[in-house]
């Protein structure tokens, strides 16, 4: 074996080279801001009050955080909003995927119609729903309510939380459906055939064979759903900002560059969010590593 070849096949920098630009870029852009955040969170920095000196105050911001009922409410809304949106879109996604996993006239067109909401710009989706569906003046839902003799409801202000969840579910159901559909279509026909021969009915086939087979796909859907839906901002800012709809990202924004300018305090909030995310991520990555390991074994 020639020397050069040996060097190439060794675990040298030659192999790592191609990954370094991406790695370093991501390290700099995503990790360095957090180091700054940690430092800011230990200071009394209020950007709109020049006269108040920016001092090192230790963990005071973190102590204040526990007395902040607004933060607690935002944290609760973050959790409930993410959980309801992810669960509902997975449920609807399963229903759509099962309906689409058959041969019928216009299958491709139906799939295309269903995935469209996922492609719509979130700001536009929120605006269209707010004005043209939920609104009391021009909204179709209210027009229907009136048609059947009910009073109109300004959904966005009366039910801000569920109005937002409805739009999120509308946008994320297609995504979940596509992942679940990929799972259904990877199911081997022979297994389903065998179940049929053994006299299993459709219901027990679904719960005992299909659902376990779908598990990794559902886990992937939950994982990606949680990543994106826990960070919702656009829909809230368009549909309705109220104490019933403000999640943590929105609250931190509001306390800092959204008008509060309390950089020290807001940084403490964001660090707490990071810690919570690390806990969720550890769990999520374990799921993920299960997925990759399974793949490797196959």
């Amino acid at each position, binding site marked *: 074996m020639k020397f050069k070849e040996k060097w190439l096949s060794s675990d040298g920098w030659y192999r790592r080279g191609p990954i370094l630009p991406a790695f370093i870029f991501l390290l700099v852009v995503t990790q360095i801001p957090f180091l700054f955040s940690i430092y800011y969170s230990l200071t009394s920095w209020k950007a709109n009050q020049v006269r108040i000196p920016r001092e090192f105050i230790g963990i005071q911001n973190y102590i204040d955080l526990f007395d902040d009922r607004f933060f607690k409410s935002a944290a609760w809304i973050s959790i409930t909003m993410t959980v309801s949106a992810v669960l509902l879109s997975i449920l609807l996604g399963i229903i759509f995927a099962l309906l689409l996993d058959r041969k019928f006239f216009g299958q491709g067109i139906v799939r295309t119609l269903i995935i469209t909401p996922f492609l719509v710009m979130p700001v536009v989706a929120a605006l269209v729903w707010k004005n043209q569906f939920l609104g009391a003046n021009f909204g179709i839902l209210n027009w229907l309510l009136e048609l059947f003799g009910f009073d109109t409801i300004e959904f966005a202000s009366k039910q801000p939380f569920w109005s937002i969840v409805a739009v999120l579910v509308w946008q994320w159901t297609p995504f979940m459906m596509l992942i679940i559909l990929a*799972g259904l279509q990877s199911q081997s026909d022979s297994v389903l055939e065998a179940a049929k021969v053994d006299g299993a009915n459709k219901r027990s086939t679904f719960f005992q064979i299909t659902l376990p087979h779908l598990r*990794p796909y559902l886990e992937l859907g939950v994982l990606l759903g949680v990543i994106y839906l826990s960070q919702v901002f656009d829909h809230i800012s368009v549909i309705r900002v109220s104490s019933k709809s403000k999640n943590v990202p929105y609250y931190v924004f509001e306390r800092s560059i959204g008008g509060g300018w309390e950089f020290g305090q807001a940084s403490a909030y964001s660090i707490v969010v990071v810690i919570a995310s690390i806990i969720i991520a550890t769990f999520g990555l374990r799921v993920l590593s299960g997925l990759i390991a399974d793949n490797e074994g196959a």
Partner: protein
Amino acid sequence: MKKFLLSLSTWVLAILFFFPVFWMFLNSFKTDFDASTDPKLFFSPTLEQFREVIDSKFWEAFASSFFIVIVSTIIVMLLAVPAAYALSIKPIPKWRDMLFFFISTKFLPIVAGILPIYILADALSLLNSRTVLIILYTAMNLPLAVWMLNSFFREVPKELIEAARIDGASIRSQITSVILPIVAPGLAATALLCFIFAWNEFFFALQLNVNDYQTVPIWVKGAVDERGNFIAELSAASTLATMPVIIAGWFAQKKMIRGLSMGAIK
């Protein structure tokens, strides 16, 4: 008969689900009067709203968005392709940990980073520039692109690369004549998904870039929403803002989801 009913209900559900998009499209051809009275399916269509939108600053926003999104997508691909190559075709030791690092950055809440990014951008006079959004959109999409490309590269049969190597093909020609033709559709789907996410992005654009080089989502919200109930004009603007991405997504739907799920699941 039962089959027919099932198909019919699938169609009905799909049409209901699609209806908001259809309604937005329809309203964009109405006059403001038609759009803000009782919902109607039949009316005399007008292009008046599109004319209004096109005469406004919409095209400036469209051009800024297009520039920012295209440049960031190109950078993402330039960084992600070699990275995915080193994760899949010639895997580095501990490639799994490396892949985890890329994905784990997506778990970090954006809001937690925005403050230092804002302060840093301000210090470097990058606020209200295109550069700051290009950098952030690249960072936002890079993990996803690495994840997807890794799965597409893994589908390339190792024997093919081996055969080319034995025939004396250099690494460069192994890449250009064996690997690239196979992964080309995957590359296109990945670039499209990055394009979609960057095109639709609102949070960073709102925080860092509201004055000069406004992007489309900011323009839609600012120019139309805050002026009150211009339903018809809002619909026209929304239609123009969403169409590029919707059409691109229709073409790439199958590939995109395969790239997203294959990395985890075979």
